[in-house]
């Protein structure tokens, strides 16, 4: 029970993960609220179409905004799930499997999202 026989990794990652969760949480609070106000209050889903997105993405500002929001939100969420697995998945095998699938899936979705934001060409006709 005292964990004496288990390898004890130094909590370097945990420290930075803790800071990241707090900083990204505060930043996301502002970014997501702005995003929601623009998308659902100032505009509405009836107005949002390909043209709307193309216009926004013609400027680098909204691309950067969305990219930062995507990365922060995604890593924030993945780290949250990592912490839950750390807490509740006891057996070594399941832990390894769940963490590996979390990281692989996380990487794929993050790469796909970034790909769309970075390579979207507003000049291309729909």
């Amino acid at each position, binding site marked *: 029970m005292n964990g004496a026989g288990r390898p*004890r990794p130094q909590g*370097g990652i945990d*420290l930075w993960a803790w800071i990241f969760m707090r900083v990204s949480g505060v930043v996301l609070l502002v970014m997501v609220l702005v995003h929601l106000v623009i998308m659902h209050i100032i505009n509405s889903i009836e107005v949002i179409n390909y043209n709307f997105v193309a216009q926004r993405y013609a400027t680098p500002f909204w691309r950067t905004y969305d990219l930062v929001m995507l990365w922060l939100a995604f890593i924030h969420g993945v780290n949250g799930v990592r912490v839950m697995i750390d807490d509740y998945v006891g057996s070594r095998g399941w832990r390894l499997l769940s963490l590996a699938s979390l990281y692989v899936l996380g990487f794929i979705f993050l790469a796909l999202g970034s790909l769309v934001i970075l390579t979207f060409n507003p000049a291309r006709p729909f």
Partner: protein
Amino acid sequence: MQVTLKIRRFNPEKDKEPWWGEYKFEAEPTDRLLDALNHVKWYVDGTLTYRRSCAHGVCGSDAMLINGQNGLACKLLLKNLGSKITVEPMRGFRVIKDLLVDMEAFFDKYRRMKPYFITHSPVPEKERLQSVEERQRFDDTTKCILCGACTTSCPSFWANPDYVGPAAIVNAHRFVFDSRDEGKDERLSVLALNEGVWRCRTIFNCVEACPRGINVTRAIGEIKKALLLRKI
């Protein structure tokens, strides 16, 4: 007043499963829960087992789960608990018998925090002095009586018994923020490990559970901050 005491009983030598013992008797509203437990043990069933020592909220022996919340049986009055009271052993510890739990691992974690003064500088001629403000810095965490109420109310501890738990961190805090102590680094290194403070998810159960009113989550937060400041 008429009291119904429902106690979670378990004797590993006889019982396969824990069971509920129900005891009805007349008691004074100003009696403490400990008096009620004593009544059962002394006059109804002598096999009822629990820890108690000073019986005045100082030694920390009789922490248990009372009406679903951790507390000291000697500090709670029957009139504040209602006429139906459920008493269970603290969660997350191995039950030895009835309300008696194995606290060896708990004290082992406490010892890992090196809960004693560490000094490397030469011994001064007189005592090591400290200002009122310096003493105030860690005053809250000196109040801990090691009853285990905070640690056994912590969901992170239930999920992972290797987590050092709030009580150990509180006792590390007591020395880390003491101006006379010089073992800060050693203690912080233990707390930075995988089973250290980062397992705390700021759930605040420990603060509600502490019978001494220690702001446990705040103390843990201050340790986290100290770890961060050490890195940068």
